[in-house]
């Protein structure tokens, strides 16, 4: 068999295949180029999900006419000069492969102009070869139009999905760009219909509302940063009432780059742990900024996978920040009586003399505030603890809910859920902090473990022991379990241990979920039921004890304990505002 160096034409096709998988990869590469060029307005226009045509135009710096033919060469880039630069990558692109790869598999028209030039350069490229170069009139910036994608790559073309599904991939991508770049205005046009356009005013909340809508966005919380020397966390996360069936609502950006990282998304889930129901996932737009030399993005040409040198630190900074944000929120679901505000303010303004609210106040209300101050809108500006402190019991309705007057409104407490929470934390505390109670096995279990599990067990042995698992090494690749915490001994004790050592991220979870489930059931059985009549003193005590729990807002099964109708809503309803 003879070995030959591949024909450049074939090798370029192979390389292109790696970067350009489907239309959405073209859009991704070109939009990243636009962002790197400093554009503030980027328009993406596709036909048939990009299979027929993809047109990206921006108002960025443009390319010099003398350099413009170079952009279609392999490893041609303006973003990297020396080897050292590779360690300090701040631009989205840098490998110099994108345009080269796109050009290899399609027809391209490019019009580009820098601010110092008078005329724009127009270049036509077909299968990687420049067919013609001419001058034309255009504004500063770059327009690239890619058509006939994969024309010389029939195998890849066969794998394309329907135009509709390719289009939806592009929509998702542009939404991700919007979330990541609030100061750039993105416009998405598909089959000549404008899908959406983002404001590009630099406000993350505005950007998020383009994607998730105003209703969802207004309830989201801004991350309160837990300061750390070199890791910065910012973004918006969903309130505890906003959760999804899957992880699709989690967008993670590291240094402005959308990335997938299981460990970090697990960190977010852990932060929400027992704030939201089991098997639900939080939503959030999380932006992490790390020193450039602490991450490696050069893992794969698509760059969605990154390696962090100090993953554990990022994990804990993110978790702490999110936890802090959630704890600072009052976490009380507000009831809204109307879908829209009744239109009192203008026509009825003359009646306002009879109302204890001045006319000018009403005038003020007319100015439509797209995003009411978040704190005021959602959480009355006070933390949950303060809110609970302010509660005065009025009575009980349906022998199920405690009615209270409190900070800025009316509060309802589900007596069962609240009591459940109190007992849950008390039992959990007793089992984790008081004397260890371990039930020994008659016939100890010998468990096969692999190297990773074994290392994990050895690293966490003190914690494992403190939970009440009597575990010892037993020969080469096995361990022996001699006893388990009494509380779970009648359930499936070995499974709970496996769960403990087998979570995806190899981060130690404090308590296995079987453990929590049993405690939750115990708490549920011990608590007052819906339908139990309570005396005032009992209700007051319930609130008193709820106050000292870690998570007063949910019962251990994730149902809420508290509901509020704030004074403002009541006033609005009665026409006083």
């Amino acid at each position, binding site marked *: 068999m003879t070995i030959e160096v591949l024909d450049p034409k074939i090798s370029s096709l192979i390389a292109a295949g790696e970067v350009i998988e489907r239309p959405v990869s073209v859009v991704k590469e070109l939009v990243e180029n636009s962002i790197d060029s400093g554009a503030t307005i980027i328009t993406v226009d596709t036909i048939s999900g990009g299979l027929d045509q993809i047109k990206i135009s921006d108002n960025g710096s443009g390319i010099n006419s003398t350099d413009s033919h170079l952009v279609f060469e392999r490893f041609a880039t303006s973003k990297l000069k020396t080897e050292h630069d590779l360690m300090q990558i701040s631009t989205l692109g840098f490998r110099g492969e994108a345009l080269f790869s796109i050009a290899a598999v399609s027809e391209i028209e490019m019009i580009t102009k820098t601010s110092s030039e008078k005329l724009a350069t127009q270049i036509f490229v077909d299968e990687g070869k420049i067919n013609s170069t001419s001058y034309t009139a255009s504004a500063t910036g770059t327009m690239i139009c890619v058509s006939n994608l994969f024309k010389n790559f029939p195998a890849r073309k066969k794998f394309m999905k329907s135009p509709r599904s390719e289009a939806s991939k592009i929509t998702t991508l542009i939404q991700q760009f919007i979330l990541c770049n609030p100061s750039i205005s993105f416009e998405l046009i598909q089959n000549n219909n404008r899908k959406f356009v983002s404001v590009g005013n630099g406000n993350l909340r505005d950007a998020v509302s383009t994607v998730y809508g105003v209703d969802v966005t207004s309830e989201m919380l801004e991350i309160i940063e837990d300061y750390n020397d070199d890791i910065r966390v910012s973004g918006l996360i969903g309130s505890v009432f906003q959760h999804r069936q899957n992880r699709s609502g989690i967008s993670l950006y590291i240094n402005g780059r959308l990335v997938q990282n299981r460990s970090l998304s697990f960190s977010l889930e852990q932060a929400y742990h027992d704030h939201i129901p089991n098997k639900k996932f939080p939503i959030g737009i999380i932006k992490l900024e790390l020193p450039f030399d602490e991450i490696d993005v050069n893992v794969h040409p698509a760059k969605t996978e990154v390696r962090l040198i100090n993953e554990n630190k990022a994990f804990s900074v993110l978790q702490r920040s999110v936890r802090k944000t959630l704890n600072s929120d009052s976490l009380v679901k507000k009831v809204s009586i109307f879908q829209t505000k009744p239109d009192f303010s203008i026509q009825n303004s003359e009646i306002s003399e009879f109302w204890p609210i001045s006319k000018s106040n009403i005038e003020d209300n007319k100015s439509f505030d797209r995003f009411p101050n978040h704190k005021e809108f959602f959480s009355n500006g006070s933390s949950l603890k303060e809110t609970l402190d302010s509660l005065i019991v009025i009575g009980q309705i349906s022998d199920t809910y405690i009615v209270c007057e409190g900070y800025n409104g009316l509060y309802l407490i589900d007596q069962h859920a609240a009591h459940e929470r109190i007992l849950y934390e008390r039992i959990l505390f*007793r089992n984790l902090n*008081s*004397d*260890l*109670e*371990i*039930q*020994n*096995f*008659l*016939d100890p279990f010998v468990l096969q473990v692999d190297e990773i599990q074994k290392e994990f067990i050895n690293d966490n042995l003190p914690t494992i022991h403190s939970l009440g698992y*009597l575990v010892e090494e037993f020969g080469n690749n096995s361990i022996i379990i001699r*006893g388990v915490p*009494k*509380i779970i*001994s*009648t*359930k*499936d*004790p*070995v*499974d709970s241990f496996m769960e403990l050592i087998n979570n995806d991220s190899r981060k130690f979870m404090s308590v296995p979920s079987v453990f929590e489930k049993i405690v939750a059931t115990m708490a549920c059985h011990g608590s007052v039921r819906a339908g139990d009549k309570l005396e005032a003193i009992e209700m007051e005590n319930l609130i008193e004890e709820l106050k000292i729990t870690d998570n007063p807002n949910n019962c251990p099964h994730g149902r809420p304990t508290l509901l509020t109708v704030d004074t403002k809503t009541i006033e609005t309803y009665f026409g006083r505002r």
Partner: protein
Amino acid sequence: MKISCLQQNLSRGLAIVGRAVATRSNLPVLQNVKISTQNDMLVLTGTNLDIAITTKIGAQIEEEGEITIPARLLTDFVNTLPDDRIDIESSADLMSVSLKCLRFEANINGTDPAEFPPIPTVDEGSTIKIDPQILKETVDYVAFAAATEDSRPVLTGIKVEVNNDDFTFAAADGFRLAVYQGKLVDSIDDNFEFIIPARSMQEIGRLIGTDSSPVEFIVTPAGTHALFNIGNVEIVSQLMPGSFPNYRSLIPENYKNQVLADLSDFTNAVKTASIFARDGSGIVRIQIVNNGDSAGLSISSRAEELGENQGEIDARVEGEVDEESRIAFNNKYLADVLDVLGDGEVVFEMTGASSPGVLRSISKPGYTHVVMPMFVQW
């Protein structure tokens, strides 16, 4: 089918087979009872596939036939009827039964008996005979120690070993072990072993009345089913695959201290301690005391926030007693075994806080119960 029988007999028969009728099943026919005729007897059968119970009652058969009808409906109806003759009639094509008793009558819709799962036949293999009262006691003494959770399915069964003229029943749930050894009525040449679901054994125990004729049972040569004959009642139970842990190695051969105490004293002291253990973690602590003139057991428990209690009972203590002659148990495990031992005298053997404790009854020499201690801070 056209038959007549007495209300009392039918009611009793339905109560017996009703134990095997499935309460919830995705196979609706399992909620039915099968009524058929055989040699001038009315045959009732119920099954939930794990266990099948068949009983025969005396009846006047005018026309043979078979049908299955909802067990619950039939039982409830028959139970309310006066104690008199019931005439049962069904036409083969209509799949319904009419019942008449004095001036009450009912029509109940049934299903085709062909849909009813066939009951496995067990006719080969050695017949083993055990005295009914001894078998009943064995079940009482052993079955409660079997696991109720399915995490190790084999532990939800009872290991039965038959050897010449001895039989041994053993059950364990991972934390305790109960073993009962007894004699067969007639010795056999074979020796064999099998695992039977504890629930089936408990049903069999319940069906043993005051009758004194031996219970006979046969195991299929393939070891898949066992058939028990108790008077007029036949029970076929599935046997469990898998291998049971070697329980003999779990019974300690030695002990440091042996204590002989009155059972009712011991039971009462544990009950007292359980009151405190109930609100706490459910742990009963036992300390052996022997200070020359008085010897016995000190039994205590505490509830974190509520308080603690302690009681002492007299006992004969053997072996050297020191600070370390103490052991803690899950109060449920201790209470369970003391409950079945009834009264008389109990032997309690232990070595230390982390070695298994052993309980035996003076009046039941074949019985051994092993309980694993709890690890606690003293």
